[in-house]
């Protein structure tokens, strides 16, 4: 049982709007760096990059961040999240970093991402862009750019599907897998 | 007081008896053996109903280590004899590698007097070939025999010096007792802790090659024609050594040999996982050697079964493999493991009993091992059918080192009788 909340066009419009908001707020693309949180945050950051590059006729820096090593829920046992590479090849000093992720939920992933970023240097600011904000924050974290606010029951699952990874663009909500 | 063992299946290889016989004991001796039901049951006779179980001469183990004096924390003559009785053994010969070594009359007498006081089976001492097992000078073999030793051995160590071994075979002839050799060329096994082969290679443990055994068996056999002594090869484990003994016997040389149950039921594969319970000397060998051992049992090259009962405390076994002591608690698993050879059709049940009773007594010229009229009533009754699982924690031995934990076997000792008296009864 799943319901589609956003379709391909909705997502494209959201990306476009967020790109403009980022440029407006930062008064252009100078000193902006987009860092996506693996896995789907990276895809979103590269779409934002394309959009911003097109609007401003420039090249903004992007990086990919795997926050697994900064998670607060690693316990004992043999099932581990698969580790992917963190790739940030530029210095963060003086940059306005836009963290990108697909869904904002408890805020714990963002907490981990901010901690990770700090190990790479001291950015001028860190801003947060998400495609979906579904509420239920467990930490004092709020997004700067939101594709869509979707109030949801805590037990349901919100999933973002992106062409590059899942073959199609959509955001769905479904009953939890038992 | 007389005792009648009835309804048993009596197997007495020494007298070629195998069938349904009842047996009457009087004053510790066998008074009568008659077909089932032929002996009158009078009111003064104690009845033991064998109920179809096998009635055999008491088992005899010519190779055990009871650790007393010196290492009583591993085993004593008392606990060792209880282990023997639980395994169906009525007679055991204890090796001299105690501390101090049994290389003189006073130690032999100590063992005999301790046995008289505490042992529930017959305990026969074996004296050292060389003083202190050092392999340097001969022990006083005459004195040792006079005190009660029934053979000579430096077991645990070989007599490495060929000249000395030659003298030992010559000198022992005067007392008509065999020299029992632990056949191992030490230069080839230095630092070794298991059989040399694919498993030692994989485990990264220094190996002990079969040649170490073969060369010494060959040397000792070569010494026989001129010395005229009697050679008994202890715990034969290599196929090459079996061949050598077979050839020597064919030439009529006075050589005999024994095999321990672990050498025909386990291979060096048992050492995987660094299980120190599988650490033996001589080591557990590879499959081809095991096959040749079985062939030696089948064709009679191997004379009898001896357990090399070598109890060790956990402090000596629960350590790094290369530092662990060699050996296994053998007495309480000997019968079921021997019956595996019957299952595999290597030997008959009668032959199995022969190898546990008549043969060792014959070779060591002891007046035991049969159920003949007038003989001492040392008898073992066992159930050959019921399957059970081996549980070392239930061993009577003070030590529990055995690699056979959990093995499903048959051959349960029901009763062990020494000198007409029941010394072990299984409930």
């Amino acid at each position, binding site marked *: 049982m799943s319901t589609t909340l956003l379709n391909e066009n909705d997502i494209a419009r959201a990306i476009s709007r967020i790109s403009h908001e980022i440029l407006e707020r930062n008064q252009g693309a100078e000193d902006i760096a987009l860092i996506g949180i693996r896995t789907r945050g990276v895809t979103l950051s590269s779409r934002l990059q394309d959009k911003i590059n097109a609007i401003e006729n420039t090249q903004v820096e992007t990086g990919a961040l795997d926050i697994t*090593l900064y998670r607060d829920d690693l316990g004992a046992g043999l*099932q581990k999240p698969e580790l992917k590479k963190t790739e940030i090849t530029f210095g963060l000093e003086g940059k306005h970093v836009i963290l990108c992720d697909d869904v904002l939920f408890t805020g714990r992933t963002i907490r981990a991402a901010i901690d990770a970023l700090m*190990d790479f240097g001291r950015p001028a600011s860190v801003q947060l862009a998400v495609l979906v904000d579904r509420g239920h924050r467990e930490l004092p974290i709020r997004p700067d750019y939101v594709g869509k606010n979707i109030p949801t029951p805590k037990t349901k699952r919100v999933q973002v599907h992106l062409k590059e990874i899942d073959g199609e663009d959509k955001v769905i909500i479904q009953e939890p897998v038992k | 007081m007389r005792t009648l063992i009835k309804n048993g299946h009596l197997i007495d290889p020494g007298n070629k008896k195998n069938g349904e016989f009842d047996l009457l004991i009087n004053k510790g001796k066998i008074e009568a053996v008659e077909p089932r039901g032929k002996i009158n049951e009078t009111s003064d006779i104690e009845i033991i109903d064998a109920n179809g179980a096998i009635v055999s001469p008491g088992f005899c183990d010519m190779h055990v280590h009871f650790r007393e004096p010196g290492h009583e924390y591993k085993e004593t003559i008392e606990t060792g004899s209880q282990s023997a009785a639980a395994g169906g053994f009525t007679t055991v010969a204890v090796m001299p590698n105690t501390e101090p070594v049994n290389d003189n009359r006073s130690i032999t007498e100590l063992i005999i007097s301790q046995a008289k006081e505490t042992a529930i089976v017959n305990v026969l001492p074996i004296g050292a070939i060389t003083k202190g097992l050092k392999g340097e000078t001969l022990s006083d073999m005459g004195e040792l025999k006079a005190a009660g030793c029934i053979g000579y051995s430096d077991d645990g160590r070989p007599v490495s010096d060929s000249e000395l071994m030659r003298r030992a075979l010559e000198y022992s002839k005067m007392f008509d007792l065999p020299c029992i050799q632990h056949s191992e060329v030490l230069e080839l096994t230095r630092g070794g802790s298991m059989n040399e082969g694919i498993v030692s290679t994989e485990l990264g443990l220094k190996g002990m090659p079969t040649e170490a055994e073969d060369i010494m068996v060959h040397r000792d056999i070569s010494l026989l024609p001129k010395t005229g002594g009697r050679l008994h090869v202890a715990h034969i484990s290599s196929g090459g050594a079996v061949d050598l003994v077979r050839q020597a016997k064919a030439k009529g040389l006075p050589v005999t040999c024994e095999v321990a149950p672990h050498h025909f039921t386990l291979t060096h594969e048992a050492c995987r996982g660094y299980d120190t319970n599988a650490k033996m000397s001589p080591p557990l060998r590879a499959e081809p050697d095991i096959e040749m051992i079985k062939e030696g049992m089948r064709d009679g090259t191997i004379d009898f079964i001896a357990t090399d009962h070598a109890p060790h405390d956990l402090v000596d076994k629960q350590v*790094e*493999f290369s530092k662990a002591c060699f050996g296994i608690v053998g007495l309480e698993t000997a019968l079921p493991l021997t019956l595996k050879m019957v299952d595999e059709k290597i030997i008959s049940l009668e032959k199995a009993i022969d190898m546990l009773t008549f043969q060792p007594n014959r070779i060591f010229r002891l007046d035991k091992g049969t159920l003949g009229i007038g003989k001492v009533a040392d008898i073992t009754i066992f159930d050959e059918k019921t399957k059970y699982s081996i549980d070392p924690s239930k061993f009577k031995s003070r030590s529990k080192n055995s690699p056979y934990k959990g093995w499903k076997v048959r051959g349960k000792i029901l009763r062990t009788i020494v000198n007409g008296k029941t010394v072990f009864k299984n409930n």
Partner: protein
Amino acid sequence: MTQTASLSKRNIISMNGLKAEDIKVILDTAVSLKEISTRTIKKVPTLRGRTIINLFFEPSTRTRTSFEIAGKRLSADVINISGTGSSTAKGESLIDTARNLNAMNPDILVVRHNCSGAPALISQFVDCPVINAGDGTHEHPSQSLLDLLTIREHKGSLEGLKVTIVGDIAHSRVARSNILAMQTMGMKVKVVGPPTLIPVEIERLGVEVCYDLGQGINDADVIMILRIQLERQNQGLLSSLREYSNYFCLTEKHLSKAKKDTLIIHPGPVNRGIEIALDVMEGPRSVILDQVTNGVAIRMALFYLLLGESDADTN
């Protein structure tokens, strides 16, 4: 949904029990972790509050340091206990030592011991995972994993590669672990050395044996040179190091007939000029220092995979 990675083994004692999938997971994880060591701040909080004990009964600098750095880069507390300083020197049994350490609740025990099988024994008496950091002449799994990572980095993949291991195979735990692991990964292994240093029945592990260095390396994609130890001479296994060197020291002359892109690895420490010529060791085909770098990443990967679990399913 996060992908998960897991090992089929809780203790890393032998490469025997590790499947190709396990090895791949470890190598992939190490690749992801390698980047941390290139940062200015070389530390992530992953194993914060975890205790790793390095229990070394045998002197070792590079392996111990590598494990220690790996633990610290993941924020674990790493404690080093050396054989001579520990109670075993006072006669305490290995098991007593293990039980005592276990009572202090370590999260991982890294064990090096001069007796084959010692880490396996320890693992039976502790609750935490045990990593074998080299036991006697048995195995040294983390070394073979870092060798595989180095080879994969340079060759792209492992399957089908031909590897020749040269030297004292009989006493080498590195050789044993690599023979098992490389074959698991579909590589072909040849061993070269004097017959006195080739263990019995090694062919039954699936390797080819060769006593001639030139012949042994002519089609090799990778040449692994093992350290030769002086004491083999006293044990009568070698006539002299000089003679060994005459026959088994890898020189440019040998390499001129080998494949152009052959890779040279050595577990270290190197006896320059005895098992490997100086110019070869420092030449373009030698990746000995890459091995050291990868050692840290491999050990971080083992720590990460053996510790820390997550429900791996939160947004």
